[in-house]
């Protein structure tokens, strides 16, 4: 599917005008993006290490999931908003960047995994699930989100 028109539109948008004109604001938004990634990574780590019985083992799983779900959602919103702002400054360049597409594929997979697999599966409690299913979910989640962060860093190197 040809998606270039979206990037061309973004490149000429008001947002792009602002992001290209104000380098200081761009740098501040990068900070928001990095801190949001850290928040997302930290909460994913706590949630998945709990599922693997490696962290906070005395705290019930639903309690950990409730808190981490809230902060993961906040982090996903700020990561997306700050990411779109940054993308607007270099939209056409990003369209031709393979690391960017790897990150977007990972990000889409991460969202699908969270909203379609992990959270619906855990809604009924871990006791009703096969322990290996729970472990597999945790390892898959960690792998996806750390890959998203790593490929994101490689955008700048490509």
């Amino acid at each position, binding site marked *: 599917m040809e998606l270039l028109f979206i990037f061309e539109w973004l490149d000429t948008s008001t947002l792009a005008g602002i992001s290209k004109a104000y380098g200081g604001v761009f740098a501040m938004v990068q900070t928001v993006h990095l801190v949001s990634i850290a928040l997302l990574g930290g909460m994913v780590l706590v949630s998945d290490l709990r599922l693997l019985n490696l962290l906070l083992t005395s705290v019930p799983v639903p309690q950990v999931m409730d808190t981490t779900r809230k902060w993961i959602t906040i982090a996903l919103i700020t990561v997306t908003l700050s990411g779109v702002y940054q993308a607007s400054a270099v939209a056409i360049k990003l369209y031709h960047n393979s690391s960017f597409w790897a990150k977007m594929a990972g990000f889409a997979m991460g969202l699908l995994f969270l909203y379609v697999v992990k959270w619906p599966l855990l809604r009924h409690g871990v006791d009703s699930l096969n322990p290996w299913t729970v472990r597999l979910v945790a390892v898959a989640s960690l792998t996806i989100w750390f890959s998203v962060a790593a490929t994101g*860093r490689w955008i700048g190197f490509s």
Partner: protein
Amino acid sequence: MVNEWLLRLATWLDGQQWSTDLHESYYMYNWVESTHVLTLMVFLGLLLAIDLRMLGLAFTGTPASQIADRLTPPMLAGFVVMVISGLVLFYSIPVRTTQSVWFRIKVVLLVAAGINALLFRNAMKRSVDSWDTDSLPPARIRWGAGISIGLWVGVVSTGRMIAYDWFDCHKEMPDFMYWAAGCVVELASIETAGAMEE
């Protein structure tokens, strides 16, 4: 005096073959930088989780000491790798980094964050028994957690800014900025020009 000494050290590091090789190696340099960012995610992410508990905003149903005790070891593991990879990154570009005003602010903020962490931890250990299960910890603990988040956001922000050349020594900028960035050569030129005018 200190700036001259730092520049001499940075120039000596810059003259080493390993420093050049690392800087010029596409994959090695980028893997070290990726490691730095990934471990920042582990360290800062877990620190945020602890601090949000201390602010009464997350894990409020779990004793604060339990969150701090359990999350601190993996957080410190992330911190150690983050510092090592940060030192390697410094080693690969020592002269420009030494003369970066952002790097200098980052180091000051890192020291401040370390002092705050020590004071915060001591204050917490002394009093935690009286509020451990409270969903909202006392004001002084919340202040410590807020300052911790603020300082670390500052560290991330200034770390990110190092990549920008707005205040590099070769740029035209106010004398104060040459001093803040430790631009030894430029400061000497300004002094010489001032002496000739007199």
